[in-house]
């Protein structure tokens, strides 16, 4: 009987789920995004107990579970920790391939931030290279107000 069934064409029910959402970024991250939008400044947060500096900001310290209330200003420059170059395309990606994503440790921070890396020859990407933030002209207080991070050019 089962064998008779599988000789026929398989039948499916198809459909889509559309899932809009609105997500509160939280108290400290609201300040963080407003600073980026209004002053092109990237802030971190500092745990008053263990002094760890976290960026993007979180309101609770990952190390000591202490409440964090204050932002500290960072330079917007940092070091590439690791990266990947995307060579394939899918419906969920924000950019057309090929493009580079990196994990960047900002100077003065203990954690790292994930973002695009732009204005770079992919062959020159290397862990440890110095990067700086490039901001979009129009900013909407979200993470894409930072356009990407680009290599810091050595003077002279």
């Amino acid at each position, binding site marked *: 009987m089962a064998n008779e069934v599988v000789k026929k064409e398989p039948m499916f029910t198809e459909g889509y789920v559309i899932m809009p959402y609105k997500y509160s970024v939280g108290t400290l991250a609201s300040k963080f995004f407003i600073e980026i939008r209004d002053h092109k400044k990237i802030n971190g947060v500092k745990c008053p107990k263990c002094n760890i500096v976290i960026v993007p900001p979180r309101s609770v310290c990952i190390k000591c579970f202490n409440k964090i209330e204050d932002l500290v200003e960072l330079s917007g420059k940092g070091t590439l920790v*690791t990266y990947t170059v*995307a060579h394939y395309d899918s419906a*969920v990606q924000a950019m057309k391939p090929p493009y580079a994503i990196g994990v960047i440790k900002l100077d003065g921070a203990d954690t790292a931030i*994930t973002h695009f890396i732009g204005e770079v020859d992919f062959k020159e990407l290397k*862990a440890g290279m110095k990067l700086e933030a490039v901001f979009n002209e129009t900013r909407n207080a979200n*993470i894409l107000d930072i356009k990407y991070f680009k290599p810091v050019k050595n003077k002279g």
Partner: protein
Amino acid sequence: MTQRVAIVGIGQTNHSGRRPYHNDGEVIYDAISAALADAQLSIKDIDNVIIGDMELFEGHSLNDAMLLDYTGAEGRSGFKMNTGGTVGSMNVISGWYNVASEFSDTTLVIGWEKHDEGPTTSAITTIWDPAINRPFEVGAISGLAMISNAYMTRSGCPLEVGAIVRAQASDNAARNPKAHLRERYTVQDVMSARMVLYPLNLLMICPTSLGACALVLAGEKKARKINKKPVWIRDHATAHQVTRGMDFMAEAGKIDTSMTVTGRKIFQRNHITKPMEEIQVFEMYDPCAFCQPAWLEEFGLCEAGQGWRLIEKGVTAREGSFPVSPSGGTLCTNAIGDTATVRVAEAALQLRGDAGEHQVTREVKMALASGYGGMYWTDLLLLSNTLD
């Protein structure tokens, strides 16, 4: 009020890329039937049913309720596990809690997935923080690519080692009739595959598979009556780990990874000082080709920087002195919600000597199985075939 817990029944479907004639419940039923047959039990002998669930992977949720008739849970206790990639091992661990506490004497645990039917990458993308990470991450693979690249940088591991891992996995999977991708590849074949997310090419990334795996767990007295070859769950550990780029604090030595935490706990609690001698096989949840070298180190099985060198020497091959994922592992078969249950099942088969053509050549008395995912979290289980 505690008892020891054994795996007394193991059932697994064949894994494949498509199975259009069967719905998810029918696939699950096949695995349960095989596990009950292996234990020579019927569903009437089961007290409790635990099922793994990957939210939205098949485009539907509340699978424990929707599939209740197929899982045998009608009128029984139980619940669904929903911990992301570790679902498959966390349902085994939850089964352990249920039996060890004497809440139940027999628990059925089920891991399953039918990736051919749903938007897996879209569903996984919803795990990333919408405010901070979501625009940059591509399903699960971008994170794995960056972890791999970081490992290569810190250890000096060459790209070819990823190809050795994949070629070895392909030889193992070719011997395993339950595996999904069973084609044999040479190191050269793997090196010439299309680049997807540097340093991972198409063959260095796990596939999307479908299949199910079920285990029957029983308390000590019952286990000895049911099965001549019970496999004991000696210990297990779980660790969670922060993500969002903050996980790279591990690179700077500011936090331990979830592998380091679980490995340390298991080895200390069980007085294991030379894990690669005292334990004979490891079924690792290895979703990309650089997981084996990186995680051998992070689990504390070898010194930092030695993982890829051991792989080059053939230590982790099926006939090596410490075989890793002799089933072909996650690189050849990845029905995500069932993947970590399969790791436990395959480690148990090795301990029973029932792994068939992919049985390792070394005598196995203790084995490790791991689960990974749900945002860089780890489950690690220590299994043995005696209670000595």
